[in-house]
């Protein structure tokens, strides 16, 4: 009896695994051979796009196009590493900043398109003792330079993400550098506000930072403007010259730099949403997904989520004609 049970169980287990494998997302190579209605836009995206992609754009895209959608959000650099190693096989990759995409050239892609930006802001806790001052600064009733003195004050609870793994973490660090220059503050103010790049008192995982902000357990934290809007958090807007949200100011941003834990030095880049198709076989679903994002409905979704949408900028070669046409 026991033997029969073991045999049946093992067969059932193998069958279940086979079914699970068939039901899971196809790799680009295999899905190119499937029929159109089974094609899936398998999108790997920066963690900050999670809410927008999974709750709005993904479902709306599926409804409008008939293609499937699966999304996976994480730190852009981490995703880039996983794609490069073949550990994940998305057919669309959306990162914040182009660096995670250019790391994949030329083997996985040769181009990207920039179409939206989400500037860095300083989100704050409306119940903290610093809130009245921060509110006056956000309303322009106190000079913006004041916030950079406040951030460095003793006992101020500032949160930010890890610059070694997250573009927002890098940009926030570089934003403080640019702000100190712009407002003629002492250079030592950068270290006073931030400490070391991976300062344990300030650096949290992306998930944790959002949770702490939502729970009111920090005085202020770095955020994309879109995140602050989606989380209903009050925030202080920063000028374009230091907020990393305007691609035309790339040179200004590049004047700030940061040394990472692995010894490499990174320079500031605009925090724009960059997207590309992974693999050199353009699937209909991946092309359709990018076309949808560049189309009116996709642009409206980005705008509603607090992003600044601009005329798409293509960089690189072998750009799929249908994607380019959509943008024009």
């Amino acid at each position, binding site marked *: 009896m*026991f*033997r*029969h049970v*073991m*045999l*049946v*169980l*093992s*067969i059932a*287990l*193998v069958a279940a*695994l086979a079914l699970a494998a068939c039901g899971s997302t196809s790799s680009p190579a295999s899905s190119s051979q499937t029929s159109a209605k089974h094609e899936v836009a398998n999108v790997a995206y920066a963690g900050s796009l999670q809410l927008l992609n999974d709750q709005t754009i993904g479902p709306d895209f599926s409804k409008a196009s008939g293609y499937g959608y699966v999304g996976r959000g*994480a*730190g852009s*650099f*981490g995703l880039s*590493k*996983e794609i*490069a*190693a073949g*550990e994940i096989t998305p057919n669309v990759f959306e990162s914040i900043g182009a660096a995670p995409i250019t790391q994949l050239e030329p083997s996985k892609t040769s181009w990207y398109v920039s179409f939206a930006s989400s500037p860095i802001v300083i989100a704050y*806790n409306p119940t*903290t003792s610093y809130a009245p001052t921060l509110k006056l600064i956000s309303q322009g009733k106190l000079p913006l330079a004041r916030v950079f003195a406040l951030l460095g004050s003793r006992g101020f*609870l500032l949160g930010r993400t*890890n610059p*070694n*793994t997250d573009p927002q973490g890098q940009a926030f660090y570089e934003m403080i550098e640019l702000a100190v220059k712009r407002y003629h503050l002492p250079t030592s103010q950068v270290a006073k506000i931030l400490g070391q790049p*991976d300062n*344990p*008192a300030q*650096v*949290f*995982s992306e*998930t*944790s930072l959002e*949770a*702490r902000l939502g*729970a*009111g*357990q920090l005085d202020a934290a770095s955020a994309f403007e879109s995140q602050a809007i989606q989380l209903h958090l009050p925030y202080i807007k920063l000028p374009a010259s230091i907020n990393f949200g305007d691609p035309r100011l790339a040179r200004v941003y590049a004047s700030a730099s940061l040394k990472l*834990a*692995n010894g490499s030095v990174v320079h500031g880049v605009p925090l724009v949403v960059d997207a590309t198709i992974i693999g050199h076989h353009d699937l209909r679903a991946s092309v359709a997904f990018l076309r949808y994002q560049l189309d009116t409905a996709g642009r409206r979704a980005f705008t509603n989520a607090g992003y600044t949408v601009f005329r798409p900028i293509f960089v690189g070669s072998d750009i799929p004609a249908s994607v380019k046409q959509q943008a024009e």
Partner: protein
Amino acid sequence: MAYRRSLSVWASLAGTIVIWLVLVGPLITLVAKIQPSQIISALRAPGAFTPLGVSVGSAIIALGFLVLVGTPLGYVLARSSWRGVRLLEAGMLLLLLMPPLVIGLLLVFMLGPLTPLGLALGSIHLSATNTFFALVVAEVYEAAPYYVLGAQSAFVGLDQGILDQASLLGDTPRQRFFRLSLPLARPQLTSSLAIAWARAIGAFGAVIIIAYHPYGLPMQVWTTLNEVGLARALPFALVLLVVSLPLPLFAYTWSRRARG
């Protein structure tokens, strides 16, 4: 007939091996995927052993705390005739069922620096945010239900007759606990402790929320994965296994022998 029986035996054996292979497949993949040179290279990096020390140290403290408070709690859950004890048991079961990430998020609301408890901790210079103390707290919460419910099960299984005889001979409840209950339950308590050890040292969900720093081994695996990719992260996963496995294996073997 004999041929059919032999075929059945072989089919059963094959089935068992298939199930085993599927279940331990990730471990086999891990060992097969890592080159010795990768392990050496990862462990030679400056500060590579710090997360190991952090993980072992914090897990030992978490387990010490669990033994001190979890053993009496498990005893009460097992032996108390008070009706409300089922409510306490339900609390432990909820903790067991809750995803660790959610436990971490709730700990932010409970122990964040601006909460009443967080402020109280601050007044004695402790913080449950990105500190070694926070790591211990996260590990305690992830491992506690495994130890407490295991301890409860150990005390439930004691022979009531022996305990009653001790009472008749004049033992106080305290003497009965230390002289009889605890020694008799020790094999199963050890097994529960071993499972709690594995949960504590491998804790991640609650840890990433309240103790992103200091890096223990699971966080080291995660950040290395994000910084430089899976190939460099896997050796730390292997170290985690090598460190966390001996105690459960030893405890399992010992408790089996002790129980005969």
